[in-house]
């Protein structure tokens, strides 16, 4: 069944249609939420919250627009909600790459931690780009930002991770 037909069923309150959406997006959702939040329980809560928000707001979804971007926007916003409750918001300005604090030497052993140390929006961009294979236009729609901002953000994320990788390699040699 195509996605448009499933969405129409969702609009009529058909829970089987919501299950179909869950089956399609379960892994991308859990992976993205887990990378955004770092904790499995919180990632599952964010996915659940996404479906409740989808149920409430499905009537606002306009046919013809990319459903994946629409639903990922809800998921990312749910993740931001969790992060906001957790700690004060981190600066999301990708241009401030120079202010980036390297992960400390204890946590420099894994790419997971290096990604976790990226600012929220930069992490969202990079995860969708590098792990989920989203096109930059899709990321822009999902995060409601300009394509140019996505390109710049991914560029700075790669620059930070390159720095992290170089430092890790040096440490290994020493």
């Amino acid at each position, binding site marked *: 069944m195509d996605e448009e037909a499933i969405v129409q069923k969702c609009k009529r*309150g058909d*829970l089987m249609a*919501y*299950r179909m959406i*869950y089956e399609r997006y*379960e*892994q991308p959702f*859990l*992976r993205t939420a*887990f*990378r955004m939040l770092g904790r*499995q329980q919180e*990632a*599952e809560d964010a*996915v*659940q919250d996404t*479906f*409740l928000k989808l*149920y*409430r707001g499905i009537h606002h979804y306009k046919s013809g627009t990319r459903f994946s971007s629409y639903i990922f926007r809800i998921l990312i916003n749910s993740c931001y909600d969790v992060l906001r409750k957790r700690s004060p918001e981190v600066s999301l300005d990708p241009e401030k790459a120079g202010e980036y604090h390297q992960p400390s030497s204890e946590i420099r052993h894994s*790419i*997971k931690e290096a*990604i976790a140390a990226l600012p929220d929006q930069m992490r969202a961009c*990079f995860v969708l780009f*590098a*792990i*989920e294979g989203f096109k930059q236009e899709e990321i822009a729609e999902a995060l409601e930002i300009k394509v*140019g901002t996505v*390109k*710049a953000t*991914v*560029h700075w994320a*790669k*620059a930070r*991770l*390159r720095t992290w*990788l*170089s430092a890790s390699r040096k440490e290994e040699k020493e």
Partner: protein
Amino acid sequence: MSCKELERYDRGEMDEAEFMRHAASCPVCRQALRLDEEVISLTKSLRKTVKAPHLWSRIEEALREKRAEEQQLVQELQLEKKQKSGRFSFRWRFLRFVPAAAALLVVVGIGVYFGLKSSAPSSGLLAHKALARVEKKEQEYMRAIKDLEKQALPQIADLNLDFVFFYRTRLETIDAQIEQCREALALNPANAHIRRYLIAALREKKETLAEVLSLEDEDTKLRRSI
């Protein structure tokens, strides 16, 4: 260390072939590309299955609860409306409406009969200017009805069965009146009586459609408040 050309490439301001030509002679960009490949490869290794065996059950339960809450509130709203509408139940109120509709049909029928019968100009005939004004008014109603129909007709199906039956019957009755008036006016366009009946029927249709939409608005507000 970084090179501005890499940033230009990442921002899409430089195509791949041009950047590769640049990288061939730029050790900074070559090193950055090598590291990028490694970063992306390490990142892709994180694309593993995350197990959450009970997650759908939790979501489904939460959705069912939400739906039940909504249905209960919609029922409460409809009950409140019925109570507000007086001591007659909705069906009884509908039955009360039937003789009125029948009487209106009879009156329209008589009007049409006399309208058809009078072929010579009389005091009931509208002057040319007045006729133009009346036609303009009818067109305004028709436009408003067309707009309202687009929104209201799909909503009727979502209403409670009592409301569906009531509004469909009411709209069918009004449409029959409009049709009768139009047939009569095709033969005698200047008949003031029939024009008056037509305007009244159009007004009633507009009000009925607006009523359907107001019911829908209340439901929407209710859904949002949940």
